[in-house]
Each structure stands twice: as C-alpha cells, then as structure tokens.
C-alpha cells in the first residue's frame, strides 16, 4: 500500500508504533498459546483484559475506553472470551513490572492484556500495552502506539489486531471500515444512502443525502475511494466517491447503464457491467487513462465481475448456460470456464483476499444462501441461509464474511427489514452489525496501512 491511510473520517494521520519488550522471561517455547482458527468450533480463549491505566482522570478515561473496545473486538471475533473484570484479583496497572500470573490463573485466564495511556506534552496520546501468556508466564507481544487523542478508538483496534495476530497467527481485521447502503422508508419508495462506519459500527457517517438511489459500493484498495452505482439524474451509472473530499465523479462515458463495479487489486481499474440494447457485457476501465477493454462477448447476462487478488483472473456471474452460474476467465477475457455446478442459481461471486476461496450468493428452491467454494468450483460449503441473504464481502484476512439479510414483508410492506451480518468462515459466530437504519450491500475495506 502506498502512502498513509489518512482519511477525513478516520482522523488518525499517523500512528507511531514501537515494539516493546520486558527484559525477562524467555523460557523455551513449549505448547505456545495459540488458537487454530481453521478448526470448526473452538472454545473461545479466556482472556483477561485489564483496564488500561492512566495517571490523570482524562488518561484513565482513555484507558477504560480503550480496554472496552479491545475487549469488544476480541469478543465479537468469537475466538476470545474476555473475562468479567469483577472477577479480577489484581488490576496490573503497571506495564513495567511482571504480572502476578498465579492470580490470573486462579480465574482461569489463559492470556492477559494490560496497558497504560498517557497524554504527552505535545497533546498526543501514547498507549502502551502487553499481551501475556499466563500459563507459560511470558510476554507474547507488546507495542507502543501514538496518535492524536481523537484517534484513541483506532489505537484500540490496533491493539486488538496485535492480540488477534499473535494468538491466531492470522492478520487482524479490527482496524478496518465498512461502506454500505443505509436504507429507510417504505419498500416502494426506499431512500438509500451511502454510509461508512468502522467494522464495529462506530464512527458512523452518511456520505450521500438520499436524493439519488445508490447501490453496491465497493472500496478501492487505496482506501480513499469508493466505486458505486448512482441513479443521479435518473441515469444509472458507475461513479467514484472520494472519501477525503466528498467529490463524486462518473466512471467513463458509456452509452448504456453501467453497474456492478469493483476495483482491481492495484486500484487502477474498475471492472463493471455495461448494458445496452438489453445485453450486458463486462468491461474493465483504467480510471486514469480512461482506456476501456471489453472482456465478454456474449448475448447472455454477464455481470458481478471481480478480480482474483493477483489480478490475473476474473470471476463473474452469467446465465449463458441457461441459469445464473459462476464463471472464471483470465483478466483479458480469455479461457472462460464455468465453476459452479451445484443445484440452484449462483450469484455475486467475490474472490477471497487470500485467493483460496470464492464467496457467493446461492438461490435454491426459494431459499437464499451465502457460501464459499474453491476457485475451481470444488469444496462448496454453505455458511448461512434465509428468506434473502445476499452480497458477501470478505474481511481483509479472508476469515470473516459480511453480507446482508432481508426479511419478508406482508401486503402492506410491514416486516420489511434489512441488516448487515458477519459470520466466521467456519459458519459459526453469526452477528448483526448494529446500524442506525436498515442496511444492505456491505463492502469491507482492505487493511488500513499506518
């Protein structure tokens, strides 16, 4: 990733990170504390997250808030069980002395996180934390972070990421954001707005005012831009939205409806569908040079294209075989192969950032499913189902999916509701993402560089 991940909404322009170590304790590495997240349902790891200390009242408040966010992040992953602080025997207010491990073992904590927050003379917030293996009595990791005080929440997510990474061996995904469509109003006059929030639903912000129908936002890998469909002036076209400036800009000058946009992994192209005279084809456009390449040439519906993480292949949705199925082609449009062969109709394919799986929506006998399969079409697994579940999006580490769920309504439209959910790749730990209004079309940001 190039450049800082600065953006108008996440106000941290820079985060200084330093690895800290407490000189002591390096016994031989035996039976290291570890969660294997590829296993089905592991018992969540009991972890003690002590309230971060702070010398002043203000710093103590930062400390409390940070431990609360770290705890909530880890709990929501389904892999950790933060212990009730009321059971704690000690507070471990200092990160400069070894914890009393025996006191943490008594309450069955296997890991301990503690830290301290202090505001520096220049006004910046400095947060130091350590993660301890309580059984082996050794430090697993520790960092110092600095940011503007307004960025305390992001520091907390970075700490949660560090804990998650150290214990699971996977990259964390807590310091990320979600762009989605906020919805309200009756079913036939639904008001839809672009909205953005942190992955835990905090820092929520509307990006458009609802005067135009907007759909299917997706993040640029460079994080500053979103591509989406807008019915601006009642002409459905793909647009770019700059998160820093709020500027909106049409993508290309196409003679027909453009929709279903996604960025290429390097952020230079937008791949999308264009429909004209009733036929839809897939196009890739370089958003700097405006060079356009048509990738499909078929009378069928060809839509919902998305790149593999190496940018060399494209997965898409087509009914060229009769009903909606998933196809993979090379990025130049050659070598088209159908990959979905199960019962039902397949749609909205999205390649995992790890490259190993493709997530999809499946419709079979009136039920909608979210599932995954390998890029060659084998190993199909369905993770969740409902009256309508649609549009999976991957966490940047490829371990969690978000999607939206819609409920049926009666003749008056009552009961119509739509919410975003997350689910672990194992099919466990399904959680609603709390949003102020109804929600659909979520898209997970890449990891935010710092």
């Amino acid at each position, binding site marked *: 990733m190039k450049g800082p991940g600065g953006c108008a909404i996440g106000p941290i322009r820079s985060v200084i990170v330093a690895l800290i170590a407490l000189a002591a304790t390096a016994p031989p590495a035996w039976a290291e504390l570890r969660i294997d997240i590829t296993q089905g349902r592991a018992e969540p790891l009991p972890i003690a997250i002590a309230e971060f200390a702070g010398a002043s009242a203000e710093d103590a408040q930062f400390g409390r808030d940070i431990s609360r966010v770290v705890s909530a992040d880890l709990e929501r992953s389904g892999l950790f069980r933060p212990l009730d602080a009321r059971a704690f025997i000690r507070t471990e207010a200092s990160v400069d002395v070894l914890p009393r491990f025996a006191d943490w073992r008594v309450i069955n904590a296997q890991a301990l996180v503690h830290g301290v927050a202090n505001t520096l003379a220049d006004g910046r917030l400095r947060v130091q934390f350590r993660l301890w293996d309580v059984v082996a009595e050794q430090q697993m990791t520790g960092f110092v972070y600095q940011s503007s005080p307004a960025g305390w929440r992001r520091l907390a997510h970075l700490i949660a990421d560090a804990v998650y990474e150290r214990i699971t061996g996977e990259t964390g995904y807590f310091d990320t954001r979600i762009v989605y469509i906020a919805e309200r109003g009756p079913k*036939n006059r639904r008001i839809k707005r672009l909205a953005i929030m942190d992955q835990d639903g905090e820092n929520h912000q509307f990006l458009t005012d609802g005067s135009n129908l907007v759909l299917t936002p997706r993040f640029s890998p460079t994080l500053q831009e979103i591509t989406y469909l807008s019915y601006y002036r009642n002409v459905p076209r793909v647009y770019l939205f700059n998160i820093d400036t709020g500027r909106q800009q049409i993508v290309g000058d196409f003679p027909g409806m453009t929709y279903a946009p996604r960025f290429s992994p390097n952020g230079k192209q937008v791949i999308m569908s264009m429909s004209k005279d009733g036929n839809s084809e897939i196009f890739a456009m370089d958003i700097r040079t405006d060079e356009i390449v048509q990738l499909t040439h078929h009378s069928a519906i060809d839509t919902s294209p998305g790149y593999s993480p190496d940018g060399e292949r494209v997965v898409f949705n087509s009914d060229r075989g009769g009903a909606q199925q998933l196809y993979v082609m090379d990025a130049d449009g050659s070598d088209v192969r159908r990959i979905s062969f199960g019962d039902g109709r397949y*749609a909205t394919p999205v390649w995992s950032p790890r490259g190993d799986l493709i997530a999809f929506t499946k419709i079979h006998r009136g039920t909608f499913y979210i599932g995954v399969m390998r890029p060659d079409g084998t190993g199909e697994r369905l993770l969740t189902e409902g009256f309508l579940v649609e549009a999976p999006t991957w966490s940047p580490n490829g371990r969690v999916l978000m999607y939206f769920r819609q409920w049926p309504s009666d003749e008056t439209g009552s009961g119509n509701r739509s919410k975003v959910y997350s689910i672990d790749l194992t099919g466990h730990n399904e959680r609603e993402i709390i949003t102020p209004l109804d929600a659909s079309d979520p898209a997970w940001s890449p990891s935010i560089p710092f």
Partner: protein
Amino acid sequence: MIFRIFALMVAVALVSACETAPDESAAASGAGASKAATSSTGTTSAATPAATPAAAPSGPTAGSQEDLVANVGDRVFFDFDKYNLQPDARATLEKQAAWMKRFASVTISIEGHCDERGTREYNLALGERRANAVKDFLVALGVSPSRVKTISYGKERPIALGSNDQAWEQNRRGVTVVTGGSPSG
C-alpha cells in the same frame, strides 16, 4: 454483438410480418417476440393483466400518462427470471404502439423491473432485458426508436409490497412512462 445482429433480424422479421398482416396479427408478432427471447422457454402461467381499459367520457387528457393507463394499459408482466413477452403482454403493446402512432409527438421511457427473489446486480441486467424486450416490440411495430428510452430498476422499485407470489407477479413488469410530447403538455 451476436445478440444485436440477431435482434435486428427478429425486428426485421416482425416489421415485414406486420406489413402483410397489420394490427391483430398476434401469430406473426408472437412468433417474433418469443424468438427474441432466445434462451427463454415460454411458460403458460398467466401474468396479471394491466388495469382494464375503461371508456371514461370525461377521462384523462388524450395522449397523457393517465390516458395510457386508463385506456391502453401502461404495463406488461413477465415470468420469473424471464424477459420474453407473453401473448397478453404483446396484445397490450400492440395497443401501446397504436396509441403511440396516434400521439406521434409523445416520447416514452420503458422501465424494467424485477421481483425481490433475485440478486441485485443480476436483476439490474434482467430489468434492462425486460425494458428492451418491450422497446424492441414497440419499435418492430413501427414506433421510432428515437421516441423510446429504457431504464432498469432491477428489484429497487416494487409496486406490490408483499413478499408473496401475487406481489412478485405484479413486480416483474415493464412499465411505459410518458416522458414528453403529451398533447396537453
């Protein structure tokens, strides 16, 4: 590309059919319409008809949207995941084409809509197909393509609010909307 050439051939076939057997040549135009729907297998389930034409003496202004709705029928319906025109849809569109000839300055937009039982992006493509099936049929009946625009709303603008078969039948539709040139202005 292939589709476009094919559609053109169908349109030509339709036009010539209409020349020899004007107006209620349902057979000829019907064959054309089902051909245009290349991959569809027409099923027989009857779509719900549009508002029944009612001769209202002091009715809406001739050539207006209200006139179209009341005396011609502004919409046609489609089967699930299909965009071929059913016989009753073709009958409605033949009346629309005649109405368009009567009010030669009227311009229209055809809205293509889907039910909620599909995915969003696919439904945008399907709505576009439906709108164009309507447009192609009208054009084949002699309506100038310059008078007809299309827009797809996918599953975004249902007319019936329920989540049941009857509502979904109502929502799988192509709607003709007068956009300009109405005699009354």
